[in-house]
Structures are given as structure tokens and as C-alpha cells.
């Protein structure tokens, strides 16, 4: 297998991790040998995993210390249960002590694990509070989104709490998945089998055009690595300042303007048009490089 060309989308969590950080630098906390599995899945007779679907540990990236979590989308949709969520919370607690250059969350999750829904929901709110705490302490958290499950449900909220969101075109980011909306509101509201539509509503190119993703990269592990390394360097020279009243008033105004400007929008084409792409209908065909060149200011 040629490691340089390996698709981030198709890779497992562990492959993404090892390709992302400096070779041989990763050490795992609470590794599979410790068999910290979910008793709730066992009770329901569902398959378990020795890492409960998330790998957490310490590594270096371009020489900088990072703490890192990678969700495994192939295990129950990367869903967050009690153990899975607690591993991420523990990692964020650790960041408060170790003060790494950044915390990296390789998000690949549909959100709460329904088999242990209450534990998952509480865990996600704990992760939200922990991300906010870590960033208030000046440590940036980056979300990397390019897996097959995207970043949905509570993990979609967590992703948008992060100082930086790196996405590939294949990555998807939202709150309610298209299947959920179709089931509740009907196929005329959202046809979840229309893949092109789904990507125009949730995909990386849409999120980048709105500014919800701060980088759009190719679907390659080295491309994610390069973006993360570059961001770490940037935060070394321009440290994260905790959000204060003025920054949040600005964000409030920005989101209010978005709601007003796109009050009746139902398709990403309308956003791309507003982001001054010469021909919005051609945006899905653009390479990442072409897209980034043509994108002016996010809409």
C-alpha cells in the first residue's frame, strides 16, 4: 500500500492516526489490552470493541507535542457511549495539565450511541464543556473531518466548538443526518439517497464556503497532516486567546447575517453563488486546489 496516496475517508482510525503524527511518536492511553469495553453493549448482545471505538493518546506532529483522539467510524458509526466519551473527556482533562501545542480530534461519528443514549448525551455535553475549558486555557483544539460517518449529532456541535475545522470534500458536517430528517419530515424535505444533494447540504465544500470549515484539503492523510502541522505553527506564533464578549458579539452578528441573507436557502448552490464562484453549478467538479483559489471570503 502506498502510504502517500492513502485515502483518509477509507482509512481506519488507527491508520489515520499513524499517518498523521510523526513516525513512531504515538503512545496510546487506555489501549485495547486494557479491554475498557462498554458493558451496555454487552447487555444488549451487541458487538463490543476493546477500544470502544476511539483511540486516544499522545504524539508529536512536526515536532510539537499533541494530544489526539481518533474515532472509528466502522464501529457503530463512531458513536459516543459512556466509555468512548469518557476517553475523550480524560484526554481533554489531561490537556489542562500537559498543555500540548494542540489537541486533535479526528471526528468520525454520527453522535450519541443509541444503545446507551443517556450516557452518550451526557458524555457529549461533558466533552463540550471540556473543549471550552481547554480553549479558555489557551490550548487550541482542532477537528479533522473526513471520515465516512462525518461529524453529526452532538459531535457536529463539538466540531464547531473547535478553534479550527479541517475538512475534505468527502467529509460531512451537520447536526441531524439526512436520514433522520427524511424519516421525520418526508422525502420531499430531504432525499437522503440523493448523494449529490447530501454533499451540497453537508459536505466540505459547502462548509468551507460558509466558513464553518477553516481549511479544505484533499482526501489524503498527508494533506490532513500538512494542514494540522501548518495550523500548529500558526498557533505557536499567534496563541489562541480565550473568546471574550466582543468576539462572541461578532460571531452573533455573523450568524444573524447568515440567517437573514439565506433566509429561504435550501441548497448549497445558493451559498456558492453568494461566495462569488463564477459558476456555482461547477463547484462540485472543482479540485480542492481550484476551489481554494476561487473561494474569496467565506459567505
Amino acid at each position, binding site marked *: 500500500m502506498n502510504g502517500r496516496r492513502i485515502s483518509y475517508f477509507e482509512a481506519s482510525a488507527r491508520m489515520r492516526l499513524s499517518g498523521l503524527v510523526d513516525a513512531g511518536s504515538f503512545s496510546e492511553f487506555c489501549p485495547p489490552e486494557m479491554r475498557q469495553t462498554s458493558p451496555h453493549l454487552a447487555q444488549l448482545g451487541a458487538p463490543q470493541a476493546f477500544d470502544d471505538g476511539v483511540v486516544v493518546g499522545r504524539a508529536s506532529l512536526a515536532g510539537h507535542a499533541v494530544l489526539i483522539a481518533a474515532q472509528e467510524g466502522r464501529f457503530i458509526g463512531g458513536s459516543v457511549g459512556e466509555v468512548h466519551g469518557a476517553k475523550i473527556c480524560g484526554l481533554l482533562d489531561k490537556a489542562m495539565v500537559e498543555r500540548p501545542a494542540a489537541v486533535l480530534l479526528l471526528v468520525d461519528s454520527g453522535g450519541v450511541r443509541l444503545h446507551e443514549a*443517556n450516557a452518550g448525551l451526557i458524555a457529549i455535553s461533558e466533552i463540550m464543556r471540556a473543549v471550552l475549558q481547554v480553549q479558555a486555557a489557551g490550548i487550541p483544539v482542532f477537528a479533522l473531518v473526513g471520515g465516512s460517518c462525518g461529524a453529526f449529532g452532538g459531535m457536529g456541535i463539538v466540531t464547531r466548538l473547535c478553534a479550527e475545522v479541517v475538512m475534505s470534500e468527502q467529509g460531512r458536517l451537520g447536526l441531524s443526518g439526512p436520514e433522520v430528517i427524511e424519516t421525520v419530515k418526508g422525502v420531499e424535505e430531504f432525499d437522503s439517497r440523493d448523494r449529490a444533494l447530501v454533499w451540497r447540504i453537508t459536505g466540505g465544500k459547502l462548509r468551507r464556503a460558509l466558513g464553518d470549515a477553516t481549511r479544505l484539503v484533499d482526501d489524503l492523510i498527508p494533506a490532513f497532516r500538512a494542514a494540522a502541522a501548518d495550523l500548529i505553527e500558526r498557533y505557536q506564533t499567534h496563541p489562541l486567546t480565550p473568546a471574550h464578549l466582543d468576539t462572541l458579539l461578532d460571531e452573533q452578528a455573523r450568524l444573524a447575517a447568515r440567517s437573514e441573507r439565506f433566509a429561504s436557502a435550501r441548497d448549497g448552490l445558493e451559498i456558492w453563488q453568494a461566495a462569488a464562484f463564477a459558476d456555482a453549478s461547477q463547484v462540485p467538479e472543482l479540485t480542492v486546489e481550484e476551489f481554494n483559489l476561487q473561494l474569496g471570503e467565506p459567505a
Partner: protein
Amino acid sequence: MSEHAVFDRLFGTAGHNVISEGQFLHGSAQLGNESITVIGTRDHAAIDGPLALRIADAILQAVSADATTHPAPRPILFIADTQGQALSRHDELLGLNGYFAHVARCVDLARRQGHRLLTLIHGEAVSGGFLAFGMLADRICALPDAQVRVMDLRAMARVTKISFERLEELADVSPVFAPGAENYWRMGGIHEIWSADDNWSERLAAALVSATETDDRAAIGLERGGRQLAAPTAQLVAVA
């Protein structure tokens, strides 16, 4: 019980000035000699982008007002009554998750500025709507009628492909997935459930005193026996 009847019990009929505009609630109230900001949702609101922005705006106004005019930041009481996030293609397109993240950042700012934060669940607290602000308070209280869940058991059975009967049977013994405020209490996700006979003013005053700005829910879940792995697992990672 209407939210205004709840406010009457909490603050006395003359002790609150909370306005409802559609499904949004905001205003102030007086508890003893303490002035409280009230922000919330009503009528099982499905929280969409504009409603999320109203909540965020009210929090920012509270922070801003108390930064200049009040000697001590006033506590904020969140009233959560939500059926969850709004489900629409439009809201997803605009990135409703980002609107919720913005609300969460505003809640976090208020905490860092010294506002004590309380949530009172009245009616429903469901999934993403509960995550948006209610679950982020220092102390989370539920009224006796509160219904708390991610999803009802029938829908859960469809998604997990585990039979409804089996889920129902397990729901009796495990607090981990079945709807119910009591389950959340056992897991530390709700700090207190008030009874109909309680003096709600006194309970609110006591909750304000108990509110801590550190997240104590995993420890409480362990203590109450409903969430025995969260705290030890986080600890395993934190000390590794």
C-alpha cells in the same frame, strides 16, 4: 402547568417579569434579595437557527449588562422546554450545529465572567435541544413533570434493531438508555428532581448555593451508581 405558573411558585406573583415571545422566554426575577436573569424556551420548542440566536443574544446581553452596571454578575436561570433541534434541510444547510456551538460558547463566557448558571427543565428536554444550553449549566434541576430523553424506545428499537420488548424489559433495570428524568438523575446528568410538594423557591435558592463551576456530573454519576465507568475511565486516561 404554564411557565408563568411555575414562575409564580418560584418567585411569587409579583417577583418576576418574564416575557414570552413565541417559544422564547426572557426577563428577570427576584429571589429574596437576589436578582436573576431568566432565559429559555417554552411550549416544547424545536430549536432552529433564529431561536438559538435569540438565546445566545440574551446571554450576551446579560453578560454585557452585568460587566458594567452590576457589582456581581447575576445568576442566569435557563428554562429548558424543548423537543430537540429543528429538523429541516434549510437549518442543516446553514449549519445548525454551528449555531448551537455559538450558544454553548456564550454559556461558557457567562460562566467565566462569574455568572452562576442553573437549568430548570419544565416539560421536555430532548437530545440536541437539551445539549444546546440546558446541559451546560452549573446545576441542572428538573420539575416533577420533566421528560428527558434522546429518543423514544420505539424509534430506538428501529435504529438499533433490538426488539422493543427487549428494550422495555432492560429499561426497568438499566438507566443507561431509557427515557426519564430519574435515569438522568442516577447518571449525574440531572443534579436534582423537585417534587410537587417541595417549596420551589427554597429549592432554587439552595441550588444556587450548590452550583459549582467545575463539571461534577461524572463524579455524581459514580456516586449514585448510574454511571460507573465514566469517571474511572476519564481518570485512567488523565493519569496515563
